[in-house]
């Protein structure tokens, strides 16, 4: 399984970093594209990141990515250096986004172990064309530059030393490598190796780049200093260095005699200042942007860990929590007075609890990045459909479990797409209706107890109740009962499979697959969806999702010999009923009246066909559960107590055999037994089926 994915740590880092950088560029572009021109910071950022990607992709031999980023880099180099006027921002953003999409696609291929075989030529062509147009336009307003190719790198050339002497001369060359090229000593070795073709006398500091472990640090800090004696001209040497990969800066100086060569040690100190300036600049701009793990001088304060490892850690901690209670609640200890043991056991419990909290907190990640991704969708749709849409993001700091983030990102995308596509009207229509021309989609997250609410709100046209009802009737999704349905129930119809008010099909959404998938995805992580809508005013979709999938507060109940666990969140109250409170409807379904409200009763032993257990309603206990769509009572033998349980999925063999309605998973109890975790919404649909 795991071996299918990336094994090579270098590749893993490459994928991780590059994806992150692409994301960053995308965000910068989206943030700034509405402005007249890119701020200098953004240009520098894009330039730098493209440069980085170019180098690392080239190192990993992904040429298509490297070439494309190189072209983009060229474009931004031009923009950065020449500050052209009249940039077609929309065009430019499109190009950048297109390149990013291409690279993302390739990254996806690499991640899956496929060959990155996409052909970037079309995009490259477009970018080059755009660059030449830019140059032309720019020349009309500012005729200073006529270079066809922009100078790729900055060189510090001491211009008065263009010597053409054919005598052998000594040069001192300080080579600075790309800050993030990695393996500086190998790069340095390559330089020397290549230099051997044109000269025979080379001396370098540090001398032994391959075997000296400190060489990397020295090169990083001071640059790679080479003294060469050659009869080649300075220009030739410059060109020579230019052609080599990963070199950021070359400082070429002529030495008058060999004697100076010997004094070089002192000189370096002086020269150091010269090259340090650009280095510091570069470093600063890097630190502005969060985690860039390449600066290995500084001890790293962040590490990235694979989710797989975290999952295993989580499992182990779960096991430990269980083993701990197996030890401390061991039946052998019953009745013994063990003061010291109890003291130690408490200490152990404290530590395991803390450990568990810690592991959980590691897995918690903010929703921000997922939300920010939606910017792109909104942008694309608003451009394509000529709509004016603003995306408003709130509460992006809210943290949820990593697994949940993965699960909700697709549904979220779908919902936002729907809002932008179907919800928000075209500007003219909005104007006619007296609304603001710009439609607003609000994406909000907030904590509510053990759950997180994600709210997608738009101020568009809202859902058409009649339309939905008509459609549902046509598709045979509902029958006569439609009349009696509440607004809420009607809106929920859109989550049924095969439902789509088809008049709305566009490129982005409306194929009738989707909303049901959204609902399914959200349900699969134990969440639920609420739709509220006012026609003409807008729609609000609220996703209620649990903070974490891994651990829930559970209430263990017993039915016959079997033990079940209910999520505490769902329990409203428990009580021992009196036989005379129970009544039956004509269909022989049991109900109970509590405080003037009628609730159906679901007997667990009947619905799960458990042979033993209490049959008389007064011998057991009723537990009132609040499901997504209804509140109902279940009948069990007894409550066994609260426990934090680690949720485990049912084995694949069983889940592939059949989806058992009403079961969410299973867990290990303190005594090593297995308890089945009940799914309240599944049970509720069961109780409805019976009733």
């Amino acid at each position, binding site marked *: 399984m795991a071996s299918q994915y990336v094994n090579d740590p270098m590749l893993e880092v490459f994928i991780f970093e590059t994806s992150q950088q692409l994301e960053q560029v995308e965000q910068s572009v989206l943030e700034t594209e509405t402005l007249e021109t890119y701020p200098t910071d953004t240009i520098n950022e894009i330039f730098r990141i493209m440069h980085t990607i170019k180098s690392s992709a080239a190192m990993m031999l992904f040429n298509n990515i490297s070439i494309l980023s190189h072209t983009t880099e060229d474009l931004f180099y031009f923009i950065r250096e020449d500050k052209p006027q009249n940039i077609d921002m929309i065009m430019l953003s499109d190009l950048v986004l297109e390149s990013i999409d291409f690279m993302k696609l390739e990254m996806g291929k690499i991640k899956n172990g496929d060959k990155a075989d996409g052909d970037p030529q079309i995009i490259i062509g477009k970018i080059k064309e755009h660059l030449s147009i830019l140059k032309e336009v720019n020349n009309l307003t500012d005729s200073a530059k006529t270079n066809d190719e922009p100078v790729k790198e900055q060189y510090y050339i001491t211009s008065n030393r263009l010597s053409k002497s054919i005598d052998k001369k000594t040069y001192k060359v300080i080579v600075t490598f790309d800050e993030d090229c990695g393996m500086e000593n190998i790069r340095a070795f390559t330089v020397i190796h290549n230099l051997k073709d044109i000269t025979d006398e080379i001396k370098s500091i540090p001398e032994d780049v391959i075997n000296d472990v400190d060489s990397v640090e020295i090169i990083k800090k001071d640059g790679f200093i080479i003294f060469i004696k050659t009869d080649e001209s300075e220009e030739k040497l410059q060109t020579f260095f230019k052609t080599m990969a990963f070199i950021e800066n070359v400082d070429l100086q002529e030495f008058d005699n060999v004697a100076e060569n010997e004094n070089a040690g002192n000189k370096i100190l002086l020269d150091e200042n010269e090259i340090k300036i650009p280095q510091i600049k570069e470093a600063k701009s890097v630190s502005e942007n969060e985690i860039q793990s390449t600066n290995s001088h500084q001890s790293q304060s962040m590490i990235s860990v694979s989710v797989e490892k975290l999952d295993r850690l989580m499992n182990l901690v779960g096991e430990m929590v269980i083993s701990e209670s197996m030890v401390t609640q061991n039946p052998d200890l019953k009745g013994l007075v063990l003061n010291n043991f109890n003291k130690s056991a408490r200490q152990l419990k404290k530590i395991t609890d803390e450990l568990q909290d810690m592991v959980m907190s590691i897995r918690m990640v903010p929703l921000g990045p997922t939300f920010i991704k939606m910017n792109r969708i909104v942008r694309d749709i608003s451009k394509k459909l000529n709509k004016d849409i603003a995306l408003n993001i709130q509460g992006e700091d809210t943290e949820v479990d990593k697994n949940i983030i993965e699960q909700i990102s697709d549904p979220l995308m779908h919902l936002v797409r729907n809002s932008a596509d179907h919800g928000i009207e075209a500007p003219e229509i909005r104007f006619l209706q007296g609304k603001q021309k710009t439609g607003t989609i609000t994406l909000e997250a907030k904590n509510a107890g053990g759950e997180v609410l994600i709210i997608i709100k738009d101020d568009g046209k809202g859902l058409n109740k009649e339309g939905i009802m008509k459609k549902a009737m046509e598709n045979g999704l509902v029958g006569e009962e439609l009349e009696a349905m509440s607004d809420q129930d009607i809106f929920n119809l859109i989550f049924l499979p095969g439902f789509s008010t088809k008049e709305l099909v566009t490129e982005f959404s409306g194929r009738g697959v989707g909303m049901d998938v959204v609902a399914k995805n959200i349900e699969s992580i134990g969440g639920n969806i609420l739709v509220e809508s006012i026609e003409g005013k807008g729609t609000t979709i609220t996703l209620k999702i649990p903070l974490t999938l891994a651990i829930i507060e559970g209430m263990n109940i017993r039915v016959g010999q079997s033990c079940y666990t209910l999520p505490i969140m769902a329990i409203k109250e428990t009580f021992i009923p009196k036989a005379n409170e129970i009544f039956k409807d004509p269909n022989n379904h049991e109900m109970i009246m509590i405080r003037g409200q009628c609730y159906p009763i679901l007997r667990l032993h009947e619905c799960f066909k458990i042979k033993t257990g209490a049959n008389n309603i007064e011998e057991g206990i009723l537990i009132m559960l609040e499901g997504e769509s209804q509140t109902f009572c279940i009948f069990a033998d007894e409550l066994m107590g609260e426990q934090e349980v680690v949720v485990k999925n049912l084995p694949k*063999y069983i889940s592939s*055999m059949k989806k*058992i309605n009403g*079961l969410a998973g299973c867990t290990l109890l303190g005594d090593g037994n*297995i308890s089945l975790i009940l799914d309240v919404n599944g049970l509720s649909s069961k109780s409805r089926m019976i009733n």
Partner: protein
Amino acid sequence: MSNVIEEFEDEFEDDEDIDEGKFLTFTVGDESYGLEIIYVTEILGIQKITEVPELPEYVRGIVSLRGQIIPVIDIRLKFKKPFREYDEKTCIIVVEIQDISVGIIVDAVLEVVTIQTEEIVPPPDINEGYGRKYIRGIGVISNEVKLLLDCNKLLNNDEIQDLEQQRIDM
């Protein structure tokens, strides 16, 4: 019992190549069966099984194997034979195929034997008997006949459709 298990575990440490042609044999009723040893990960004594509702009868439930939850099926019920109470000889053979682990409840585990390919004959072509389709061959060793099971087919959920069909019919 525990001796037997230890013995088997020693065998498991061998290389996979050596496992070629090796079968774990067990009894169900009067017949003895064989399972290719490469699929077998562990043998457990019978333990408390947690029932899972709404499953076919032969899926007895789930057990915890050092924190891993695995389903157990009763091979008697799978072969439509009458249920027999579990005793101290009853064993759960844990097999793993394509990342799916399943425990198989058998009457008793016998031993590990090597059966050469040439000693395996295809099962006769009769369509009788429910369990027949799970037999991939018949091995003969020292005049005893072992029915060799096809692990893949055994764990294949191909009768789900049958079940669904039954429900619709009902």
